[in-house]
């Protein structure tokens, strides 16, 4: 399977702390994307990072990509209770245009 893997599966932190989630993948990619899903809702796109990029920021989100290690990380700074959700990485492999999702990290931010 070419499915990416997120780590950890679950993360529980206090409001104000930073949250870091990692994603590893198997083969060469065109891009890697991070999505968020609140319980019972559809997924919402957070950040897209292309294979020739190393870091991208969006508000309190920072995504890094290390193509030599085939891994990416999502950092949420100064977390809030409203950040509680599942976070998924998705990879578009160079071998095809299919976007493959991992199993996700369940983040709980306690007030």
């Amino acid at each position: 399977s070419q499915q990416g893997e997120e780590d950890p599966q679950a993360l529980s932190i206090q409001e104000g702390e930073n949250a870091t989630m990692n994603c590893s993948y198997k083969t060469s990619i065109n891009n890697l994307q991070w999505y968020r899903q609140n319980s019972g809702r559809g997924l919402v796109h957070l950040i897209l990072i292309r294979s020739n990029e190393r870091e991208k920021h969006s508000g309190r989100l920072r995504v890094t990509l290390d193509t030599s290690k085939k891994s990416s990380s999502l950092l949420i700074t100064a977390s809030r209770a409203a950040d509680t959700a599942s976070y998924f990485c998705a990879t578009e492999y160079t071998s095809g245009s299919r976007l493959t999702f991992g199993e996700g990290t369940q983040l709980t931010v306690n007030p």
Partner: protein
Amino acid sequence: EAGVAQSPRYKIIEKRQSVAFWCNPISGHATLYWYQQILGQGPKLLIQFQNNGVVDDSQLPKDRFSAERLKGVDSTLKIQPAKLEDSAVYLCASSLVGEKLFFGSGTQLSVL
């Protein structure tokens, strides 16, 4: 900008019955996707269309699932006959080619 519309929001059927889901993508988005998301798992791609042609249906159980995209816009996904293991959320998404996906709210299917 209107988002991706899906209906119905919930559906309960008995096994061996048939069911159909409908999706209206964002206007101008050439690529349309159907994903299946089983509880506690990540979304799994069932089928991907570009305009009204199929790009990838390698993970679609073709003995029971079918999908079409009408005139390169709306799409329907059908299951016939349904099995217990088809209980899941069916997500439709659309995008410009090679860009981020916009998801609908999904259809939650329960097969009893």
